[in-house]
């Protein structure tokens, strides 16, 4: 294995300039969710130039790629990258700045995609060194409900195909601007939350603020609903089950002396258990509608169901962590906390053994500290060589594990 590790490291180093060019090309040409037409064409072209021919489109702008080693029917491991960008105006002054005003790779999907291109090239060159098949998933629309992952799964990406097994496990990575470049983070078990958007409209009867007897006050009713829904977390949730219910928008557009007809509330619900999640949805809706009804108003409680929670398979993740320690050195691998944000890799994790790990991209000395989803997000590009090399190494380890 030591020899193989050296080969991987050497190839990662050898191709690091090309990976960097790929990243910069993709960064400069970002495309919004489910519109990744040019990006996927670019990926197809690059793969072809590496001699990777087994490619098939899925979910329109997604791509499934097979790299077969010896005895390709024996086992399949899936690797995944997402390709979409965000509706953000880039504020970085860099040569590879977005050429599309208002669209930006502010969540590192350019890094994930270019890294996976590098991994494809490395694994393709090491075909003689492994038994089984790697299935590379370049997916669209991670940032937008219903999530590209769910569409890729619908299109059969986790099924057996082309004389290969259905993947028994899947590996994905995500940039982490809180972790210094050169550091990798893992977490076994529950990692990221399910996230549902909540849109509430409370309709009462507006009127002059001086005539409360003639109105049904949606401002007060909305307040009661927000206060009462706190007990979903404090009284209904299993205390061992992390759950968050937050409301960030309240819009009552009357005046000091005019009560409006309607108040709009927007929020999010996040947790880590699918059964509890469904029950919480029912309870919230019932409570809000009941309060509104009891106070003479009506309440439209609309839940936009988002991604499920993301769970890292404990044994798979432990194996990947050990492999990462071999590759990076023990001191460069850290444990991660629960993260209440959501990620559509969660869909894969509900279907097969999954491991989603974090790639450090921070460099305080270079002033690279901005969070994802901000106009100044960028990475230390030293992370690219690690992103491509480490994933190749993890994939090879997983394929060989019994």
């Amino acid at each position, binding site marked *: 294995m030591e020899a193989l590790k050296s080969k991987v490291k050497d190839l990662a180093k050898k191709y690091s300039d090309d990976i960097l060019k790929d990243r910069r090309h993709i960064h400069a040409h970002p495309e919004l969710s489910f519109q990744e037409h040019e990006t996927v064409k670019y990926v197809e072209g690059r793969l072809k130039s590496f001699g990777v021919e087994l490619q098939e489109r899925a979910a329109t702008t997604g791509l499934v790629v097979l790299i077969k080693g010896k005895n390709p029917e024996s086992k399949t491991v899936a690797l995944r990258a997402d390709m979409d960008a965000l509706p953000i105006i880039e504020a970085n002054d860099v040569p590879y700045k977005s050429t599309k005003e208002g669209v930006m790779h502010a969540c590192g999907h350019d890094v994930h995609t270019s890294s996976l291109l590098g991994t494809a090239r490395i694994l393709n060159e090491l075909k003689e060194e492994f038994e089984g098949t790697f299935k590379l998933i370049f997916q669209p629309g991670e940032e937008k409900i219903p999530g590209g992952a769910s569409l890729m799964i619908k299109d059969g990406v986790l099924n057996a195909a082309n004389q290969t097994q259905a993947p028994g496990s899947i590996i994905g990575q995500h940039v982490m601007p809180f972790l210094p470049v050169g550091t990798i983070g893992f977490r076994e078990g529950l990692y990221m*939350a399910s*996230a549902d*958007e*909540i*849109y509430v409209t409370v309709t009462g009867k507006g009127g*002059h*603020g*001086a*005539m*409360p007897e003639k109105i049904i*006050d949606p*401002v*007060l009713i*909305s*307040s*009661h*609903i*927000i*206060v009462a829904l*706190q007990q979903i977390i404090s009284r209904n949730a299993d205390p061992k089950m992390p759950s*968050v219910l*937050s*409301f*960030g*928008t*309240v*819009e*009552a*557009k*009357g*005046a*000091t*002396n*005019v*009560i*409006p007809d309607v*108040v709009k509330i*927007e*929020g*999010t619900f*996040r947790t880590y258990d699918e059964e509890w999640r469904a029950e919480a949805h029912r309870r919230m809706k019932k409570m809000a509608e009941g309060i509104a009804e009891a106070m003479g108003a009506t309440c439209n409680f609309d839940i936009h169901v988002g991604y499920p929670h993301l769970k890292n398979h404990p044994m798979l993740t432990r194996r990947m962590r050990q492999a990462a320690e071999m590759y990076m050195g023990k001191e460069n691998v850290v444990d991660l906390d629960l993260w*209440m*944000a959501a990620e559509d890799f969660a869909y894969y994790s509900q279907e097969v053994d999954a491991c989603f790990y974090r790639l450090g991209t921070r460099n305080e000395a270079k002033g690279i500290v901005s969070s994802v989803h901000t106009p100044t997000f960028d990475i230390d590009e030293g992370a690219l060589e690690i992103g491509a090399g480490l994933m190749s190494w993890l994939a090879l380890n997983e394929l060989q594990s019994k």
Partner: protein
Amino acid sequence: MYLKDEVKRLAKAYAGEVRRFRRFLHANPELSFNEDQTAEYVAEQLESFGLEPTEGIAETGVVAVVEGEKPKSKVIALRADMDALPIQEENNVPYKSRNPGIMHACGHDVHTAILLGTAKVLQEIRTSFEGTVKLIFQPGEEVTPSGAPIMIKEGVLNASQGKKVKSIFAHHVNPTADVGKVGFKVGPMLASCDDITITVKGTGGHAAFPNDVVDTVLMTSQLIVNLQQIVSRNAPPHIPSVLSFGRVIADGSSNIIPDTALIEGTFRTFDETWRADAIQKIITLAKAVTQGMGGDCDISITPGCPSLHNASELTKRSIKLAQSFLGEENVEILPNLIMGSEDFAFYSHEVDACFWTLGVRNEAKNIVSNIHTPTFDIDEDAMEVGVGLMTWLALTELGVNEQTIKDSSVDEIWKR
């Protein structure tokens, strides 16, 4: 001729002139404290009646006195407001507002024109009454701080002819009552009105990390729910009180909690002691709720008008006099308190005051729009009623010259 009939005759005779006053004012509306042209116009008319107006009181206010016999015996005041509203008029009438975006949509043109007409009649019959009538043309009724307290501060109720103003009268157009009708209410009539602005301050952040956030949305909701007890638990049950919040803006998103949230509302009641107490309680509770939840709030309560109280004896007398002048069927005793407010209230806390409503509605002519709307207008016949009644109430309040009084009903009613 009875004096009452003489007043009626003059009100009728000058109706055309009063209509011209009103139409000029309506076509040339000016916003609060910018009533320069209006004040000039008012002063010119007063001078043409032979009066000597004083301008520039409370910026654009005008005051004049009509002296009857024995002018030092007693002083009463009549008040009109002069300002218009920032509303674009939609009426298609010859006297439509010529000032874009400004409109006399609350009838202050009517109040001013009627007081001019009243001044003209009083001046003409000044030998028929004893005492002095002070005419107060006030600016800025519609804004806070408003014109009345400034006029008072500048001495409008102070000694004139060596006598303080004893009582004050005013009326307001009422588009829900038919033209020809007036409405009175003894005691409390209109509410005090205070604007409340609360900025709830917390720590915003990503909605997925509640432990890093001091949630302004939840604090806002708790606050609005908690403040209900000001009315339900703290207000003396016999004092009508309203606390309403019409505007709440928490401008985050489904997954972002904002740093601050804005709440705007109004507090209205009818008792000055309770009002002051309630304002303190609102501030204390708002601070306690937000601070208790780890945040804070800036709370500003802009005191508006106090509640308006019609002096009991004066108003009861005025009701009887109005009945004798207009006929009992045309004088309504208003059954309910009105939770709206009016800055005439400030005068009512200084001297005996009587404030009544003047019907201006005419469904047959399709004159039905509410005040503060772009289609508000009046049946102008109301102005003859207004001039007549205001003159009549002023005369009878002052004391009619014994030589001219021939109306026994007045003699009976008018007893000090």
